[in-house]
């Protein structure tokens, strides 16, 4: 269960979900760009962020349709070669959103689809994170979702920590927050008289 202050969870809940209003609502015309009054009519089809769509669904005010990132087209692509699909462009929080959307829609095959996609991509993430070079960001990482790149970074940084430990060397370091400031102050120095 994500925490109240979890930034990733909050940003994930901003993902747009297409809904159809089952009731009308007054005073919220901003939600429906096609509306001429300040109201949303019964039957209006609009995109709402997940946090709003979810709560309204629980109050039976809207019906939710499956987001495009779980469409048949994406599923076919994942089946063809899971590792090559650019999931970030489809939804940066592909798995988290998938888990949260399952109880809200009638299509129950999303769960197994997520599992299939993740197991297909995991091996590649793991092997590349261990062999990736330290400085450059590998090209394939732009295809990863947020969850996958966190996994990738975790594996990469533990690999780096292991290498550092094996070589020995200084363990005391300057506070990382100061390191950056220095770089920004040096170019500023010549300009000051």
């Amino acid at each position: 269960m994500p925490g109240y202050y979890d930034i990733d969870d909050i940003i994930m809940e901003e993902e747009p979900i297409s809904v159809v209003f089952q009731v009308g609502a007054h005073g919220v015309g901003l939600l429906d760009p096609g509306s001429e009054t300040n109201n949303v009519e019964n039957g209006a089809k609009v995109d709402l962020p997940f946090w709003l769509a979810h709560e309204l669904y629980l109050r039976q005010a809207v019906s939710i349709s499956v987001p495009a990132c779980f469409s048949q087209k994406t599923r076919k692509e994942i089946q063809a070669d899971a590792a090559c699909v650019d999931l970030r462009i489809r939804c940066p929080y592909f798995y988290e959103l998938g888990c949260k959307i399952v109880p809200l829609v009638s299509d129950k095959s999303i769960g197994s689809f997520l599992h299939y996609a993740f197991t297909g991509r995991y091996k590649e993430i793991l092997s590349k994170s261990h062999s990736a070079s330290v400085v450059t960001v590998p090209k394939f990482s732009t295809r990863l979702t947020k969850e996958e790149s966190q996994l990738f970074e975790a594996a990469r940084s533990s690999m780096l920590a292991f290498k550092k430990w094996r070589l020995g060397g200084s363990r005391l370091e300057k506070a990382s927050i100061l390191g950056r400031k220095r770089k920004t102050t040096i170019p500023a120095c010549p300009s000051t008289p």
Partner: protein
Amino acid sequence: MYGRRASQLLRELACSETGQLTAFNSDAFDQVIKECNEHNLQLQSLIRKIEDENLDIQTTRNEDHFGAVIHHLSLIRNKRCLMAYMYNRAETIQSLRWKVGPVLPQEIQEKLNYSEEECFKNHSAAIQSYMSELDLDLTVDMVPPKDPYIRVRVLDDIGEVCLGDHSISLTKHSLHFLRRTDAEPFISQGMMEEFLE
């Protein structure tokens, strides 16, 4: 869209590296608060409308009710975003006490807003009073030591410093053999580095 600006505030936080601070975005913060006030006004006018029609506020499920619900949810959402923004920054700011010390450099100080400065001061004072109660400096030995003494190179002209029972002149590029606990604050502030053969 409702709540969009508040989530942009958090995106800004998510984009910065962990442990780094960006300047407090008081413009966006105030705008979100303004949005909250707007939602509150709309919410109250919708509720008043339901009451004026002599309907029961608990059971009515008409268009006005759902409008009010949406404004209410948006308020709660904005609150969560603002709270998360403050909370996550406060975490970073508190960690500075352990990494940088009780006095923040100017360039970091500039990025804090007034309440964050207060938070840092109070947090710092709390740690200080606890440490003096224990008679132990908890901020040293953040990395488990192998040896009580280390060799260091001075990177900045620090000048005459009193360490333990004797004073020592720390000039730039000089090498010293110091007690690790004495050297540690200088290293974390970037004025010294550990010297390895």
